[in-house]
């Protein structure tokens, strides 16, 4: 556990030692603002809540989280530092978790920096802050799901651009699996339980409950399982790609 934390600290430092962290945070905040106020019609809705802010998170994360995750392992493989890291007395899983936590904490920092939205809505009206807190927690947990996918895919390639694109596509599939478009593709030939299973994999469906302020245990378990499965796969991929 100790080595996990040491790696998390190093990785977090690595984000802030390059412009990446600042670029990411600025873009995340700017896009959140633009989407909330223009597309989300924050003022026009006339409601004191942050639904129009949170409802864009699944889409925002679709691009931004693969950008955070892409360097996690691809960069190590490219520069050869994974040979250094993986010959230190650290189990592979600890390195995987350590890196994942660093990126997750980083996204948490970016998410926390959206507090002006919360101040604004409290200034304008009397929102249910419990719902807002629940939505923040839910958004953070969902970010972890995207991140685990991105981290796993980053381990499979040396090329960060490829890691980004594939992670975005896979995340997109998870995001969209509950949408009519995808569902109708399966309807008519796939058995019901398959359709249900696909539907149940949807980030969107699980997140929609959370935005409304309901943290259902099932949703938490769902995102937790996504993280678990992809980080487990991540560990396996790191071990399989040693030396290649």
């Amino acid at each position, binding site marked *: 556990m100790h080595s996990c934390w040491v790696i998390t600290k190093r990785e977090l430092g690595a984000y802030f030692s390059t412009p990446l962290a600042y670029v990411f945070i600025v873009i995340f905040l700017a896009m959140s603002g633009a989407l909330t106020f223009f597309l989300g019609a924050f003022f026009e809705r006339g409601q004191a809540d942050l639904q129009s802010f949170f409802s864009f998170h699944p889409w925002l994360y679709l691009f931004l989280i693969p950008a955070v995750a892409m360097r996690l392992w691809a960069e190590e493989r490219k520069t050869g530092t994974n040979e250094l890291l993986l010959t230190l007395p*650290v189990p592979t899983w600890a390195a995987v978790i350590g890196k994942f936590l660093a990126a997750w904490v980083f996204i948490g920092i970016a998410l926390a920096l959206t507090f002006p939205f919360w101040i604004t809505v409290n200034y304008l009206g009397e929102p249910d802050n419990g719902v807002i807190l629940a939505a923040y927690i839910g958004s953070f947990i969902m970010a972890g799901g995207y991140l685990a996918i991105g981290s796993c895919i980053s381990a499979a390639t040396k090329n960060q651009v490829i890691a980004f694109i594939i992670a975005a596509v896979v995340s997109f599939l998870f995001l969209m699996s509950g949408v009519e478009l995808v569902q109708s593709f399966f309807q008519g030939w796939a058995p019901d339980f398959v359709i249900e299973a696909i539907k149940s994999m949807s980030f969107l469906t699980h997140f929609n409950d959370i935005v409304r302020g309901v943290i259902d245990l099932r949703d938490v378990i769902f995102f937790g399982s996504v993280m678990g499965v992809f980080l487990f796969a991540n560990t396996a991929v790191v071990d399989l790609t040693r030396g290649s």
Partner: protein
Amino acid sequence: MSEQGGELGGMITLDGLTKKFGSFTAVDNISLSVGKGEVLGFLGPNGAGKSTTMRMVTGYLPISGGRAMVCGHDIETDPLEARRCIGYLPEGAPLYGDMTTRQFLGFIAEVRGFTGADKKKRVETAIHKLELDAVVNQPIETLSKGYKRRVGLAQAILHDPDVLILDEPTDGLDPNQKHQVRELIHNMAKDKAIVISTHLLEEVTAVCTRAVIIAHGKLVFDGTPDQLQSQAPTHNAVTIRFTSSEGLVIKSDLSSLPDVARVETLNGTNTLMVIPAAGASIVDAVGICVRDKGVEIDEIFVERGHLDDVFRQLTLRG
């Protein structure tokens, strides 16, 4: 071939170590043991399997066959314990370029379980040993190749490991830095088992107590640097430079001496090289012969033999 163990037996023991990439055998059934106090020079042409062997011993690459024990720990079944007692400099000395030298060494110290004052002391000692004081606060990516290599070495010796595995430690260093690193290796050698890979043959005579050559993944030589040198075709050959070309007439006399394989005239000079059979010592007999014939000579000396020749002879075979 010689079988040597250090005083405490094998700190590193390879038993039939094999690595296959698909149908290609990169490392083929290598067995050897390195003991405390030994500095083993691991030689071989590029692509012979040096780095692959080192990567297996340090637990980076999975092993296809045989086994590797480090400090009594099997690298496959007990990888963390084995890695704790290894200091490893990977090929090309990969480092986290975004960190400063001190941050990086601090990170390695923490991963290796040092904290507080102990960590600080370890880091400072390593900085001092590799003379990195001038660059401690510089990001590693801005450092010269020589400094990067030394940061890599500092990282490897930081925890004072029992086993040091250094893949081309002096690559990219200038002659002064090479000397310094060899000095460092020499000073640490007493209570460690050290393996260095290199293709600089001078390095073997400079720091190694033992030389191992691999070619095509197979072990082709294991012995002391002296034994290696003695395999040179010109080992113990006697070169004579005569004052004038008249001296060359004794060529046939020299050829008929016992233990002399052949005598060569070096092109366009008044110089003969007398090559012995099987490295025998012939300088006495040659000297007497020259004196008896009364020819005038400018110089006479015994060749030590070129390691390059031995290297080529051993690695090009087959």
